[in-house]
């Protein structure tokens, strides 16, 4: 690869940048780019076929890939100025794409029907004060737990934990059960980490596009997990196959799992003999009001799409976010429906795991929430950096303060570099 790949991208670059690119298809079939596994691909194709049956004008050309490959393809398509008319936005790239004018403002798209949404909903959707992306799901951070184990072991799972209480319980549970652990090591889990920060009066990202937490805040998160790992409440890093735990390897031997609310939909199918349930993150007693938050996976219309295609894309958005028949086919792997009417309609058909997810998202959605901000340009590698420093901590090659300091320094350096590039261009 190496030189060839870079050289290839160079050639694409030579064809013209985003600003000068011609954009998506004009007149022909709309191009729709998204990621996932083969099950999602099959389901979405079925749903799009249904949409095309209802309206032939909305036949889509699907551009599908696994998550990493999707981002690679987006990179080369951006360089060539040939991005799909509609595309999903990887979480770490939301503001990067925005800074590079990839989004078409949605208030110019007349076909987009937003009548089901309250003003508060629409405020949540804004990026930098503008409505330029359309959320199509909602995730919240959760503890997913094995309800079968809870029942078998006679555990009294409370409605609400605090962090210290959960840690004490986890240590005790693991000590009593030699064949399983209380919780998988998940210090790299992004939404639970963000939940921790917000409960401690900090943010993942600040409004001005910087890191929103202090070194002390980061250290406290690492320390909480290291305390659990040191006490044997989590699997070792080797046992769970890395800092990011492998559900396939230890999912049926852990009582609890810190993750995103939507993961239950796919993960539960791997161990059908177990029942799984969701509860909120532990809550710090001093957590400020409004610490809850919603994460929206987003989709956008390419800024280079023709007016005609943009209007048709608006109708595709209406179908993907506003038609319960679509969700009946694709399920809730991308989270709870963002459209409140559809969420209500879907509840009638939801499976037990989907119902659990819908309920927990609804509770957070109804709570007062302070603003949250998306990852700024240059921060796209923050999770890779976090994984690396966690590897150093868990291998004993770095102390928690040193690891936290180096993580912050590396991310800040990347943000600075991106910012300097923007200024000079």
């Amino acid at each position, binding site marked *: *690869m*190496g030189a060839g790949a870079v050289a290839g991208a160079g050639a694409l670059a030579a064809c013209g940048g985003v600003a000068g690119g011609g954009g998506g298809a004009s007149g022909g079939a709309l191009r729709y780019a998204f990621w996932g596994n083969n099950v999602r691909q099959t389901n979405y194709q079925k749903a799009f076929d249904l949409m095309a049956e209802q309206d032939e004008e909305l036949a889509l050309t699907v551009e599908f890939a696994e998550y990493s490959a999707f981002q690679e393809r987006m990179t080369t398509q951006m360089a060539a100025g040939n991005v799909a008319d509609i595309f999903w936005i990887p979480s770490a790239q939301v503001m990067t794409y925005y800074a590079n004018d990839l989004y078409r403002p949605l208030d110019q798209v007349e076909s987009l029907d937003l009548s089901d949404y309250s003003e508060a909903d629409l405020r949540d959707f804004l990026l930098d004060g503008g409505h330029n992306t359309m959320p199509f799901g909602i995730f919240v951070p959760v503890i997913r737990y094995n309800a079968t184990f809870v029942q078998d072991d006679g555990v009294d799972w409370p409605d609400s934990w605090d962090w210290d209480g959960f840690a004490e319980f986890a240590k005790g549970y693991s000590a009593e059960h030699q064949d399983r652990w209380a919780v998988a090591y998940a210090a790299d889990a992004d939404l639970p980490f963000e939940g921790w920060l917000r409960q401690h009066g900090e943010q993942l990202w600040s409004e001005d596009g910087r890191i929103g937490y202090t070194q002390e805040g980061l250290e406290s998160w690492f320390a909480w997990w290291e305390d659990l790992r040191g006490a044997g409440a989590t699997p070792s890093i080797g046992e769970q196959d890395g800092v990011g735990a492998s559900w396939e390897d230890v999912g049926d031997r852990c009582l609890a799992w810190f993750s995103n609310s939507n993961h239950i939909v796919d993960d539960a199918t791997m161990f059908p003999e177990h029942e799984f349930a969701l509860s909120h993150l532990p809550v710090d007693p001093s957590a400020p009001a409004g610490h809850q938050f919603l994460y929206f996976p987003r989709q956008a219309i390419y800024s280079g799409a023709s007016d005609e295609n943009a209007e048709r894309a608006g109708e595709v958005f209406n179908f993907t976010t506003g038609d319960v028949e679509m969700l009946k086919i694709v399920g809730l792997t991308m989270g709870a429906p963002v459209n409140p009417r559809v969420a209500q309609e879907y509840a009638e058909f939801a499976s037990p795991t989907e119902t659990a997810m819908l309920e927990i998202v609804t509770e957070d959605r109804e709570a007062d929430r302070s603003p949250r901000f998306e990852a700024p340009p240059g921060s796209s590698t923050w999770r890779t950096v976090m994984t690396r420093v966690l590897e150093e901590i868990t*291998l004993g090659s770095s102390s928690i303060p040193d690891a936290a300091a180096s993580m912050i320094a590396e991310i800040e350096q990347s943000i600075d570099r*991106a910012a300097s590039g923007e200024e000079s261009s």
Partner: protein
Amino acid sequence: MTATLRPVDAPSGSPPAGARSRGGRGRRSQELAAHLFMSPWLIGLALVTAAPMLASLYLSFTDYNIMSSPRFVGLDNFVRMAGDARFWTSARVTSLYVLVSVPLQLAFALLLALVLDRGLRGLSIYRSAYYLPSLLGSSVAVAVLWKQIFGQEGLVNQALDLIGIQGGNWLQNPDSALWTLIILNVWTFGSPMVIFLAGLRQIPEELYEAARVDGASQLRMFRHITIPLLTPIVFFNLILQTIGSFQAFTQAHVVSGGTGGPVDSTLFYTLYIYQQAFVNFDMGYASALAWVLLLAIAVITAVHFTLSRYWVFYGD
């Protein structure tokens, strides 16, 4: 090359004037045909290889994030490498990988070629079986398989368990992760083995017969006949495998999930280029890294060629 072309029907010696004219037309016609046949490859070279390489060379002197126009920054990207700890880590990891895996792979390939050259029955089956890993070796499927073999509950640990040894997760231990990838590379010995086998078949049997008459032992014949006459093949394999190993990517990408972990212990140079280009969107820096790799491979290859004068025997 075209200078050696000669019309098939042209007589030797100086042709008469008319014949020279016909010969000239024939030569031009043949040259044209040769160029026509070569043109698809030449066009491909220009468009798919040379042009992107030149674009990449230009980008290596720019700050380019793909979405904005490249900004010329002179040698900044190259200067930046000096202070980039991960650049040095990736260079160290890749160098160790090449230095250990290439000699091991060639030694293993030569050993098996010698065994297969002894006229075994079903040789073609063995040859195909041993070549198979080379076809699959750098594929995603094999890297995934490797992950299973060297995982916490993988085949290696199950085997060790039988003799009472408790193994760890070899791929999650920075002291062992790179070595599993070295083993994977050694395992793909099929390609050099087939070339060695062809080389062994070219050594004249008369040389061995003469040596036997003189009472030479097998070891002596190996040292003084086989190895010297095989050195051009060893050299060829060494060059190919060295270049290929410097460009290894897939195994590390799959096994580490694209991170080069744990703790950058499998951060191959090409993986670092990939991270800079497609994750960081730092295409200017990635291009500079790619050119440094190209230069490093060129220098190492040149050193190999220079040293080959002292150990490669062409028999002329």
